[in-house]
């Protein structure tokens, strides 16, 4: 059970002649939440994109359930959910259509469930309004609705709390805690002061943040 889902071994990433991190190793176990910390520009987003498989200019190894991830692209992607800065919401489509399109690539879900998920993120009544008429926070909530129905065991969430109001933040924290208690694995970055039980930290931008 406590086999790590994803393991980073000796990760190193260099960007524009600057070493962002070096010799970074950690394991993502089921039932844990890992918070990636560091000042602006320390490579938090880059690390998350590397973990998600979007950025492959790194050296070191990424092991998916103990084996090199390269051979398990399909299985890895099936079991991983990534939400980035740009949440993948098309301004021209409605929240329903957006959620539909995002889920269509991953899992068949009936419309009723999608509708409920949007209600669950506080978008009840906005389901069929084009997203460009929604506020930034509401647009993020459309993307967050995926978390209410996602069954991927590994979540990688970049700045999830951005543009969400205080009450929403509280609810979202509860969602993450519950998820972790049920055995999900979550990696997050956030500037919001997140204090969850059994939260692990990966800190970037430490001593060897530069290569000279």
């Amino acid at each position, binding site marked *: 059970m406590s086999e790590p889902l994803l393991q980073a071994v000796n990760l190193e990433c260099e*960007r*524009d*002649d600057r070493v962002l991190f070096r010799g970074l190793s950690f394991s993502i176990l089921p039932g844990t939440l890992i918070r990636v910390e560091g000042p602006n520009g320390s490579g938090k987003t880059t690390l998350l994109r590397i973990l998600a498989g979007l950025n492959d*200019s790194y050296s070191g190894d990424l092991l998916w359930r103990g084996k090199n991830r390269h051979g398990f692209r399909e299985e890895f992607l099936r079991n991983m959910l990534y939400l980035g800065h740009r949440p993948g919401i098309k301004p021209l489509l409605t929240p329903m259509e957006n959620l539909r399109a995002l889920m269509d690539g991953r899992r068949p879900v009936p419309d009723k469930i999608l509708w409920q998920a949007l209600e669950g993120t506080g978008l009840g009544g906005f389901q069929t309004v084009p997203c460009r008429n929604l506020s930034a926070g509401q647009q993020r909530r459309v993307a967050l609705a995926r978390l209410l129905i996602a069954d991927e065991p590994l979540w990688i969430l970049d700045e999830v709390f951005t543009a969400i109001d205080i009450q929403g933040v509280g609810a979202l924290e509860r969602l993450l805690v519950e998820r972790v208690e049920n055995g999900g694995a979550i990696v997050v970055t956030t500037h919001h002061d997140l204090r969850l039980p059994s939260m692990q930290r990966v800190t970037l931008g430490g001593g060897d943040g530069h*290569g*000279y």
Partner: protein
Amino acid sequence: MWQIFHKLGSPKWFFGIASKLMPWLLWVGAAMLVAGIVWGLGFAPKDYLQGNSYRIIFIHVPAAFLAQSVYIMMAVAGLVTLVWRMKLADVFVRAVAPVGAILTFLALFTGAVWGKPTWGTWWIWDARLTSMLILLFLYFGVMALGAAISDEKSSARAVAVLVLVGVVNIPIIKYSVEWWNTLHQPATFKLTEKPSMPAEMWVPLLLSVLGLYLIFGWLACLRMQTEILVREGRTRWVKELVQARGN
């Protein structure tokens, strides 16, 4: 085998080898090129159809020949970049693309000037000239894309994809241009296809082709060294080397 391959990919190792090789490439190449050209210009007999204007061949053919093979070499290097992520392969592509473009331009220019006395016009939309022109466009594309992407690794791989797409297209382009040529151009302006070139002509031609090849090798080494110095500026060996050279 694998170790040799790995070593080949090491910029430091290459830098040393290149330094040793370069004088030879330059001087042997220059000697062969000059010999070929002097022989071709002054001693080879004149062509019975085109007269003396054919003497342009001793630079036109080497330039055209190299212009095409440089692109093929770039494509091979591009493949190596994509498959093995070998840094040196991308260094080669970057260093060599402008040289390839210049050679292509030279082939076009000498072809055009040769055309004036032979065909009576500077430019004809002849199959060879046209496909050379398109090759020049391909070179420009590679250079423009390389310059536009700032991140080194992404830039290397993007350029590699483009070069490979280009090389798949080259035979198609060549074939289509030839087909188009037969459609529009009655075959009156055909360059004399010599059934048998006398040895006094092809030996100097061969000399100048080989000579230009070697000079290209020298240029490639030189420009690759520059590129390596820029990219590896932070490594210790470059720092040491730079200090040693300065004093």
